């Protein structure tokens, strides 16, 4: 798996028209900060495995994923699905790693469908044979999100460190034949932003109903490769103009999402739609995640579904309550009039750039650490001219087991630095 799966729920998007007589007001309108006011999880991301045939340089999986390789069994996953559905989760993504390396995927999809989940397979396409497509359709899978790295074979294969481009093209055609709606996903960065028109053309040619153009978010492996991947402001502005043009001309055929490159913004994103508000991730080893990248936050003891009931994890665990709501906010967020809009931004970004996960997301220009973000962007701009030199000095670090073990070992040593090789 390579892409950032972007759970995006619109929990309260209400149609404007309200024609029919309304009975008494809705339930669950308890005020205040009581536990009763914590909403249920709506989005379950089941990261079935960290195993993956691709080695993408921008993968959001943790650097030390090889330390967490003991995967939940089929029976344990079935329990997770039932418990999450009982809590109220309704959107379900099967992700990884590459979820197709689990041969029980069809069993899990079938049970998820029976439980009433809207199911999504988030895949690189590797292993998605005609036979498995048929079995997944029969099991009730609702849609498929297929990742590409670029519109060109050369760059797709380089960025994933594999030869998969033609395979992905074949898989895209096959999954359309089987009647699956397709979300095409492409992570954007300095190397492929200039191809965004070609990427959109490819999505249209392959019949994708949705195209997710996700600017790289700098966590996990992407953070390690930030110097290479960070685009320039000019690249982004050009790409955004292209996206806007295609939305006007082809918006009905294919809905194009453009995940904002937040290092170039002055206000942070409303990360995860709120911590512990919508999203519940479960990692391959059973660790419960308030966000995809939560594993990288120090001092956050992640509860595990193997020893703690999911209900307790969601409502009572320290990990899910740590940044829930607004009461944990520090200045400048605490007194900020925009706090309810962005909820302080991204915790992982705050940690990575300021050293404290409870700080304001430094993307915000009200943060005293905003200069850190500006510097990263400036470095990218100055490096653009000397790209070839920089690339030689610091080769891209591909996501594979040997690099993961090396990084995990280095992190265990006090003060140890990375020793990974590309």
């Amino acid at each position, binding site marked *: 798996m390579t892409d950032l799966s972007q759970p995006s*729920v619109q929990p309260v998007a209400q149609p404007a028209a309200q024609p029919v007589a309304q009975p008494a007001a809705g339930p669950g309108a308890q005020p205040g900060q009581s536990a009763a006011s914590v909403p249920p999880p709506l989005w379950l991301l089941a990261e079935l495995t960290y195993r993956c045939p691709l080695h993408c340089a921008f993968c959001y999986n943790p650097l030390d994923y090889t330390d967490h390789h003991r995967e939940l069994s089929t029976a344990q996953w079935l329990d997770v699905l039932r418990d999450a559905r009982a809590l109220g989760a309704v959107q379900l993504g099967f992700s990884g790693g590459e979820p197709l390396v689990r041969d029980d995927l069809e069993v899990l999809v079938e049970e998820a469908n029976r439980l009433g989940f809207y199911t999504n397979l988030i895949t690189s396409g590797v292993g998605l044979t005609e036979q498995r497509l048929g079995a997944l359709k029969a099991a009730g899978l609702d849609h498929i999100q297929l990742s590409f790295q670029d519109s060109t074979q050369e760059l797709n294969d380089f960025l994933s460190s594999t030869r998969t481009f033609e395979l992905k093209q074949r898989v895209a055609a096959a999954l359309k034949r089987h009647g699956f709606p397709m979300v095409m996903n492409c992570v954007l960065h300095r190397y492929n932003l200039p191809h965004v028109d070609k990427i959109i053309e490819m999505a249209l040619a392959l019949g994708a109903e949705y195209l997710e153009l996700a600017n790289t978010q700098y966590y996990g492996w992407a953070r390690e490769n930030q110097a290479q991947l960070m685009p320039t402001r000019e690249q982004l502005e050009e790409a955004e103009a292209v996206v806007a043009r295609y939305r006007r001309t082809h918006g009905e055929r294919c809905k194009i999402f453009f995940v904002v490159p937040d290092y170039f913004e002055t206000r942070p994103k409303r990360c995860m739609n709120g911590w512990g508000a919508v999203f519940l991730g479960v990692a391959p080893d059973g660790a419960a995640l308030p966000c995809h990248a939560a594993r990288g936050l120090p001092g956050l003891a992640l509860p595990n579904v193997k020893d703690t009931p999911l209900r307790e994890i969601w409502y009572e665990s320290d990990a899910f309550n740590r940044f829930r709501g607004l009461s944990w906010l520090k200045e400048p967020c605490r007194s900020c009039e925009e706090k309810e809009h962005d909820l302080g931004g991204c915790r992982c970004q705050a940690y990575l750039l300021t050293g404290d996960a409870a700080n304001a997301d430094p993307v915000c220009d009200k943060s005293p650490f905003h200069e850190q973000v500006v510097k990263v962007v400036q470095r990218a701009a100055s490096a653009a001219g000397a790209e070839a030199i920089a690339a030689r000095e610091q080769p891209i670090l591909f996501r594979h087991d040997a690099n993961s073990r090396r990084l995990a070992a280095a992190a265990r040593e006090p003060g140890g630095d990375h020793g990974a090789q590309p």
Partner: protein
Amino acid sequence: MNDSTRAESATEASTQSGSEAALPLTIAKPFRLQWEAAQNAHVLLYPEGMVKLNQSAGEILKRCDGTRDLDTLIAELEQAFNATGIGTEVRAFIADAHRRGWLE
């Protein structure tokens, strides 16, 4: 981690006209309508997203199951809720639902 909240953009051009009013109303693929007890609401599910419906919208859309045309739907709602004169509002909602791509 990133999570962009996607605004519902109803960009689909309105192609519905009065001449289609007699066709049975059906939820369009890939949307799926279902009741969610945890939210005490009907929701419309689609790839990467969900729309929580208010009660009125839920009552209308749950009847869009391919067995009723618009006039029948309105008559049924008026009977179910002991109301009259809701036709204009229901038609406006159905037109909006078409624009959003929720209905075939």
